[in-house]
């Protein structure tokens, strides 16, 4: 067995996973109205190709990818389009964005699907195009268009394809349940990914707190055509082992160079859920129209994992799981470490919604944050080896240049520093703020630089015009004088 690496810091957290793994994956009853934000991925929003009033079928494309970093969007169920307008979306900013609203007809009538008979005959380019057309994004939570990460540039060769089934955040169990129940599908997807990336080797990484999932994957692999081509590696449970860069360090003992991408060291990483979605897209022709979402938390009586159509209102999922949600309980999308609060339960489930968390088991927070005593616990916990205590000092003083010097932009916002802080300082908030502020200032600086250049150019131009004008005037004067002298001379002659 290969020697595993490790990352500095990190936390051993109470997983709270068993809350949501007691029942198999269930489906939520079809909702009346599905609201689909046009941007459920990183990159440019998709562009609608339907009009209000159009009838759509389940799986029909309703918006097309715009530009390179973008993916298509499909109708999760049959019905007709009732609106294309700005609506609140689940996003930390709480802002609104363009959404397509579908009123479902309850018939769940599929559009004609075109599965690929044998993908082995397809080129890697064709496979990527199909994956893009199927609207597939990384289902781990970030939502980066998957086809791009399957697209090694001419300069790079994919050595290792890593499938991330670590799921290190507490409470979340959607990947766990997917591996338990749909191991075969995940492996089918990995086979396609291996062909698309031409990776030399392939690893599935799973945290050791998921023995059932590990067993299911191993059993399924032993009879799969991929047997012998994929290694399942069990990694120790330590948050944030599921973070891309940290997992790479654990598995390969290598670090992604600062400012670089995993592909720079020959690695490509995808979530196990993405692999499953790819299998459905290629082998069955089904676009990405649903995902597994963990509905859990203290206030959820009947917690578990649901297969949810995109656009389904979160409250329908919460009601299905018998959840008490009040104003005092923020509804959190994502895990308790990196998730963000949602404004209300009317927002839809999107491609990046891996978990809806209502009520977290935790000690009552202090009434106020105490000053930093520089104990350094945060630095010990930081998986990136930052010095959060120093970063905080500079961020608080708004000495942003200094904060950037202290590697502000290497912060992955995992929240470990925040968790261990004995003064309960909201460190991650400070760092997020400092990052946005720095980026704003950079933009401002660029703008003002551009404005200054414009101004300088204008002045030079005006100066030149003035000079030209003066020159012309002089020339005219001279000409006039010359003609006058000539006239005078004429008159004198006569």
């Amino acid at each position, binding site marked *: 067995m290969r020697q595993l690496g490790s990352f500095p810091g990190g936390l051993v957290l109470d997983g709270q996973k068993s809350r949501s793994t007691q029942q198999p994956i269930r489906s939520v009853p079809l909702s009346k109205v599905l609201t689909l934000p046009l941007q459920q991925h990183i990159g440019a929003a998709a562009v609608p190709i339907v009009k209000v009033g159009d009838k759509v079928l389940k799986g029909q494309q309703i918006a097309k990818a715009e530009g390179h970093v973008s993916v298509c969007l499909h109708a999760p169920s049959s019905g007709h389009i009732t609106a294309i307008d700005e609506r609140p979306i689940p996003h930390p900013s709480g802002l609104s964005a363009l959404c397509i609203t579908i009123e479902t007809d309850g018939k769940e009538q599929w559009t004609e699907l075109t599965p690929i008979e044998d993908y082995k005959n397809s080129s890697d380019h064709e496979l990527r195009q199909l994956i893009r057309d199927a609207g597939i994004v990384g289902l781990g939570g970030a939502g980066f268009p998957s086809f791009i990460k399957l697209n090694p540039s001419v300069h790079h060769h994919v050595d290792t394809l890593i499938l991330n089934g670590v799921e290190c955040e507490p409470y979340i169990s959607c990947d766990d349940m997917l591996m338990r129940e749909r191991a075969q599908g995940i492996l089918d997807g990995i086979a396609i990914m291996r062909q698309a990336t031409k990776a030399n080797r392939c690893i599935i990484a799973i945290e050791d707190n998921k023995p059932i999932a590990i067993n299911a994957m191993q059993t399924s692999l032993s009879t799969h055509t991929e047997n012998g081509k994929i290694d399942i590696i069990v990694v120790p449970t330590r948050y944030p082992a599921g973070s891309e860069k940290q997992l790479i360090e654990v598995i390969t003992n290598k*670090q992604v160079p600062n400012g670089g991408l995993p592909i720079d060291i020959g690695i490509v990483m995808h979530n196990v859920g993405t692999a499953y979605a790819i299998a459905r897209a290629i082998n069955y022709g089904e676009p990405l129209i649903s995902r597994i979402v963990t509905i859990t938390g203290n206030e959820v009586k009947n917690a578990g994992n649901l297969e949810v159509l995109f656009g389904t209102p979160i409250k329908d999922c919460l009601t299905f799981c018998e959840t008490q949600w009040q104003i005092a309980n923020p509804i959190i999308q994502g895990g308790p470490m990196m998730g963000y609060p949602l404004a209300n339960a009317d927002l839809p489930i999107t491609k990046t919604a891996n978990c809806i968390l209502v009520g*977290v088991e935790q000690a009552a927070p*202090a009434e106020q944050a105490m000053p930093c005593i520089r104990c350094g616990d945060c630095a010990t916990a930081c998986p990136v080896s930052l010095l959060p205590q120093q970063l905080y000092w500079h961020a608080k003083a708004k000495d942003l240049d200094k904060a950037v010097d202290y590697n502000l932009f*290497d912060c992955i916002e995992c929240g470990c520093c925040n968790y261990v802080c*004995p003064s309960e300082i909201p460190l991650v908030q400070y760092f997020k703020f400092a990052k946005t502020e720095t980026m704003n200032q950079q933009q401002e600086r660029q703008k003002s630089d551009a404005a200054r250049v414009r101004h300088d150019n204008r002045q030079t131009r005006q100066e030149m015009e003035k000079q030209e004008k003066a020159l012309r005037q002089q020339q005219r004067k001279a000409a006039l004088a010359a003609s006058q002298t000539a006239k005078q001379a004429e008159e004198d002659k006569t």
Partner: protein
Amino acid sequence: MALFKLTPPYLSGTNRITDHMVQLLLALLPAIIALTIFFGPGVLINIVLAVVLALVTEAMMLKCRHRPLKPFLTDGSAIVTAVLLAIALPPLSPWWLTAVGIIFAIVFAKHLYGGLGYNPFNPAMVAYVLLLISFPVEMTRWLPFAELNNIDITFTTAVQIIFTEQSPYQLAVDAISGATPLDIMKTQTGLQQTPEIIQQNSAFGLLAGQGWQWVNIWVAIGGLFLLYRKVINWHIPTAMLAGLATVSLVTWLISPATTASPLFHLFSGGTMLGAFFIATDPVTAATTLKGRLIYGAGIGLLTYIIRVWGGYPDGIAFAVLLMNMLVPLIDDVTQPRVYGAKR
């Protein structure tokens, strides 16, 4: 009151500043017991006096600075400063000495710099140095080790001496106090005595001074408890003790006739208190791991230099303050390599 956090992470650990301070105080118990056994109950009176004064001063300063009283009075930091200063002072020092020290520590060394977390210098050590420079006579009135002392200091005598500066035996306080082993070592080696002969004096035990060696051992036991509970980490104490041991070992090997052994230095005066309780004050210490090693080693080295070649018998307080000054520089040059940075 909102019971839920509004920003991620929604989970938090249970570690709080107050817990740090409570454990620190618990860890000081063996030291306090040892000091009481070997040097009489005076230290207990000093502690009570110092703690009460510290809390009152802290409250007044918080009021002046319009800061909430409850969180800052209950964080325990003022109490820790008070106890550390109280056990560093001679056990029968007059009440006003303690009072001046505490007020200076809390008002000047702590709050005028911005209060908890903002003071660049260790408040207890600032006060100690102020007192040592201003009142050298009172500050060197250490009682000889109790067993050597034919006068048994009871609780009431201690109270009387501390508050009236009158000894009930019609004796000057000077008569019942004596030089510490570190003092003796310093003056005697100055008189060309070899440490070997000096240590035959009845004030010395197997390792270092009678009583003092035990106090240091008991303090170290408290320090090990802090390490075990992860209230402090090993870097600073280890580096400081190693720094002190190394430099004293080297000089001792070169010239055993004129310098005391590493063991003597490790178990004398405030060595263990400094290593485990003073130098490890997080606010004023270096904060990077490498920086903490440099910081600790620097204190060990400076302590030795001041003890042997300086004008004062013990050098912990000066060494700590001098290294406090270097902390911003040390922290700046010892930043760890972040993930993905070039090796």
